[in-house]
């Protein structure tokens, strides 16, 4: 039926528009890639299942993040307690800060491409290796023929450089 088709279209459009934000949100809370992908898939499934309750014109991102948060909690529950690094309190604090800082974080993320471009080529390559598929720190170290410790320190430094660049970019834009 055409109505159903347009509803599917609407869902696909909204999901596509918000997939990056959802991925980043879930990843922020579970902190590693494999788990983030798993939780995101479950989230997408629930979003589709519950899409009938979503009212067109209201904030899809906010609704989706609420669903995602519940999925993160459900995922934690399924995990063994002793395998969890952080408490529920900690996670809830992180989630609510992510929510409160939402727009600022979006702007920081938007500044990321510019900051990556400013990195020296070898540093950018290190980031690419680390964040592409199978990019464990050991694999990266092997590729660049450095020790694991040195690679670790280099990646930490680069991330902090990027963080500072993004914050500076924002501060400059806000002054402008």
């Amino acid at each position, binding site marked *: 039926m055409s109505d159903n088709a347009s509803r599917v279209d609407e869902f696909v459009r909204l999901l596509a528009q918000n997939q*990056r934000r959802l991925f980043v949100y879930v*990843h922020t809370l579970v902190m590693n890639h494999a788990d983030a992908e798993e939780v995101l898939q479950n989230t997408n499934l*629930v979003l589709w299942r519950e899409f009938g*309750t979503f009212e067109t014109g209201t904030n899809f991102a906010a609704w989706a993040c609420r669903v995602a948060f519940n999925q993160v909690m459900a995922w934690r529950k399924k995990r063994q307690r002793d395998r969890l690094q952080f408490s529920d309190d900690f996670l809830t604090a992180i989630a609510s800060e992510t929510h409160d800082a939402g727009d600022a974080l979006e702007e920081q*993320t938007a500044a990321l491409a510019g900051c990556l471009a400013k990195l020296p080529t070898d540093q950018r390559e290190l*980031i690419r290796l680390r*964040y592409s598929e199978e990019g464990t720190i050991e694999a990266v170290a092997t590729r660049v023929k450095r020790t694991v410790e040195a690679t670790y320190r280099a990646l930490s430094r680069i991330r902090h450089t990027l963080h500072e660049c993004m914050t500076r970019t924002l501060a400059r834009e806000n002054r402008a």
Partner: protein
Amino acid sequence: MTDELRTLCSATVEGTLTPEQSRRLEELVLADPAARRFVVEHLNLHASLKWATGDSTMMARDGEATSEPQPKARPSKHRLVASLGWVVAACLLVGIGYGAYSGADSPAESRGFAKLTDASGCKWESGTLPTEPGARLGVGRLRLAEGIAKLVFDNGAELRLEGPADLELQDGNRCTLHAGRLVARCPESARGFFVETPSASLKDLGTEFGVSVTDGKTSDVQVFEGRVDVTHGKTGRVEKLLTGRGMRFTPDSATALDPKSAGPRTADVGTSLLPGQRLVTISTAAGRGKDTYVAGKPNLVHSSDVLLLVKCAQPHNSEYNRKAYVGLDLTQLAGAKAQSATLTFTQAPTGMGFASEVPDSTFTVYGLTDEKLNDWKETGLLWENAPGNASGGARVNPTKTVKLGQFQVRQGVQVGVSSVSTPELSEFLNTRKQPYATFILVRDTPGSGRNDYVHGFASKDHPTLPPPTLKLVVEGK
């Protein structure tokens, strides 16, 4: 502190955090908003970098990355394709068997299986489900008094419930319409959605249809678009109804239905008139009509000029008793015989007393048989000189009156129309020698005595509501 936080953040994202370090990080994050923000920004960066590796515009390998900061990173091609592929798969799964998923782990959002999306202008009677727009709905009952309520099931089925109606929700794929009307629109995702009625079971096959249940047993089904399979409750026979078709299902039969031929439903006197019959309406506002009420304590009589107040108090509070007196000018009926008659009172809130302190109540209408007493005065009528009156909130003088009928008012209900339509009423009207009739309305049910509610009915002086009104089907001139 920032150095410490940096170390902790790096260890977090690389997964090398020791138990001591994670305790320390929790401590900092929970105690200090600035630390919390710093950590969130760092985790956000980590996540964004992971996402960005799929985005060729951000991770240009040859150093040709765009130097302009991009306003918003677009979703990468390969992720979008992945989402699309996933949605197609999800649609198939949902289409095949939604039910398999309905019982899955439930985050707060998914409690229940439907949502009340619109209830503007709705009035509700006591059901077991929330009636606030936006409320999640699970198993339970909705009783809609008036208005149109919109419900959306999680599988996409949309119902518009038209009051007055009584709907029971069974699960995410099934509901029962006990009374009233609804229009259902079921997208493909809700294929196989069931609407049960007392006489039939409707299985939706991707469509839009209307169903109406009357008398608690007759179901009229009208398919607007698509196809509905209706199983007749008694015979088990399945009728496949396509676009434009309609059928009426009673407990014993299933017949074709032409919705255009259906007339308006008239619950009151207005059954179709036979030749020689006519409909007569007489209210207290017509001719020599009059209405007022008397109270146990005379100075309580003028607490309302537009309402007829009625109350049955506890014996020790007898001064708060109130009874309504209604006089109707029957001149129009001269020479005619009433075939049927309905006397109607329209309730209005009085704001006097607590409705919680009065249970479901019975009201009785008496006719004044002693016609010499019809000459009572609207103004200045007192408890003591009111014709046919007797002491007590519910009693009248049995030698001067006759009981004509009763109606019920549920606890807390302060508006609405109540009627008496009995053979005794017709008989009473047909045996009047004078062209006049006096009625007494009393409440049989006493309140608690703790400032209990005083019921009110519109009098002929009420600015908007109709006064006590008699409708008759008469034969003759």
